[in-house]
């Protein structure tokens, strides 16, 4: 592949496909102020540029996971500058977070609502900072990027009986091509790979990694069993999926056919190109409820692993995007596409109508990835989707067998 395009050069050596200002609430109590600061730029549907985005952590109790996630997201290559919005009395360790962002070479400022004089004064001060810093980072250094610089994640949401035969395997084809070109690709949701663990383990680069992969799926099965509910929504059944193992088989097709070179947990950045499984189910006893309460919780974790963008395969018709990285929407179901074409980047349901095959749609996905990387807006970006959610989770670090090639 000879594609190349201009990305954004970061001082820490990473290369981004967007140049965003992240306005970050450090507790739910600061969310309104953060969103109001971002509002003049946030929504393309209201004439905004879309490059100033709100995200944050809602809880007031400390969370090592929440801290790591925000640290990875605010030093993500797509982020050019950061404004932290603090209420003033929350539990989040903002000094440590500022230190991490500063160390990455990005401009960062803290706006404390209680010190600024309340909501109105904080919003004014925040907008003034954003105005100034945007002008500054707009002239930031550019750098040539190639497919080997990319990290791409994939997720499926609002799945139905078409996802596993059109959109997911087509995304898998795109992954295979990207990996051949040197990119790192991440697939996930171990709770939706139940029943596929042995096949996956056989694809691992080493037997030790294979055991880790199998163990991660067993952990997910135990976790969901304890909760009494698989990663399976009523809408999946509407769309013809009957069991979690059936949904898993379809979801697994997103991974393509490449060797699995590593197992990541949220916030681990792939050290080299290749295919990675992201273990999104917490370690230890069941705490804090469902592993991922919705699709955006998983998307945020893929982005925290460095994903420049995320492929989202939907059958029922999800509309979401994400803060921090573009989301490319692949519609698996031709009837859904006919109703919701404005929200979809790729019409994979043509495969069901005999109008295209998996290789053709895989190529279209690949083209969309490169267009997006070069700055082209995805449908969810154009429609202002910047969903974001973080909850409480707890993880142990990955073991030495998880990254055998490092």
């Amino acid at each position, binding site marked *: 592949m000879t594609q190349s395009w201009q990305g954004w050069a970061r001082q820490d050596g990473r290369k981004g496909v967007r140049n965003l200002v992240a306005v970050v609430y450090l507790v739910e109590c600061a969310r309104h102020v953060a969103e109001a600061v971002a509002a003049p730029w946030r929504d393309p549907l209201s004439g905004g540029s879309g490059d100033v985005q709100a995200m944050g952590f809602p809880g007031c109790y400390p969370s090592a996971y929440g801290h790591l996630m925000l640290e990875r997201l605010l030093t993500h290559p797509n982020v050019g500058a950061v404004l932290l919005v603090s209420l003033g009395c929350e539990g989040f360790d903002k000094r440590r977070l500022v230190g991490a962002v500063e160390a990455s070479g990005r401009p960062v400022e803290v706006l404390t609502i209680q010190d600024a004089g309340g909501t109105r004064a904080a919003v004014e001060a925040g907008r003034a900072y954003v105005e100034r810093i945007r002008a500054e980072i707009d002239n930031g250094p550019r750098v040539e990027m190639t497919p080997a610089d990319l990290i791409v994640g994939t997720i499926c949401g609002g799945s*139905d*009986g*078409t*996802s*596993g*035969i059109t959109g997911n*395997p087509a995304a898998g*084809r795109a992954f295979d091509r990207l990996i051949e070109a040197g990119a790192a690709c991440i697939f996930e949701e171990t709770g939706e790979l*139940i*029943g596929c663990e042995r*096949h996956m383990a056989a694809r691992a680069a080493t037997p030790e990694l294979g055991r880790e992969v199998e163990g991660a799926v067993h952990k997910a*099965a135990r976790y*969901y*069993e304890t909760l009494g*509910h*698989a990663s*399976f929504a*009523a809408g999946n*059944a*509407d*769309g*013809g*999926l*009957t*069991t*979690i*193992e*059936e949904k898993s*088989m*379809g979801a697994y*097709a997103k991974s393509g056919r490449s060797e699995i070179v590593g197992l990541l947990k949220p916030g681990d950045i792939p050290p080299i190109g290749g295919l990675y499984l992201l273990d999104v189910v917490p370690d230890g006893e069941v705490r804090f409820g469902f592993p991922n309460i919705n699709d955006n919780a998983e998307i945020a974790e893929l982005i925290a692993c460095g994903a420049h963008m995320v492929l989202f395969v939907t*059958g*029922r018709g999800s509309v979401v995007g994400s803060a921090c990285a573009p989301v490319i929407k692949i519609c698996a*179901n*031709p*009837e*859904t596409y006919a109703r919701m074409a404005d929200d979809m980047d790729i019409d994979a349901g043509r*495969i*069901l*109508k*005999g109008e*295209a*095959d*998996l*290789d053709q749609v895989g190529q279209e996905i690949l083209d969309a990835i490169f267009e997006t990387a070069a700055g082209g807006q995805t449908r969810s970006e154009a429609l202002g989707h910047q969903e974001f959610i973080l909850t409480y989770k707890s993880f142990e670090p990955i073991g030495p067998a998880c990254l055998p090639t490092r």
Partner: protein
Amino acid sequence: MSDLNASMKDQGNGKSAMSAITDRRLILLDEVDNVMVVAATLRADEVVRIEGEDVSMHRRIGVGHKLARRSIAVGETVLKYGAPIGSMTEAAAVGAHVHVHNMKSDYIPTYTHDNQADFTGASS
């Protein structure tokens, strides 16, 4: 796991021996499967050909749903993608809708809304 692409291509081009005697709106993902996937909504009272056999649909069945490729007994494993995806709680005749009303997970029970037990995908 089977090569999905090969089976999709056969279906898409109508070149496989199977598609000559099976309605093109039904997709067989793997030779060992005992269910087929609906590629375009089937109307109630429609007659659909399944491997040479004409079967009357008793209800509308939506895209992405499954039909029995042959009769499947209670307790039998349901195979799709060439892999087990659960087991039957009721017997199904050729062409019967296979879903939450007559099959179950062998891992974790599927949660559906109360009014979904007989769901046919007709709203989709």
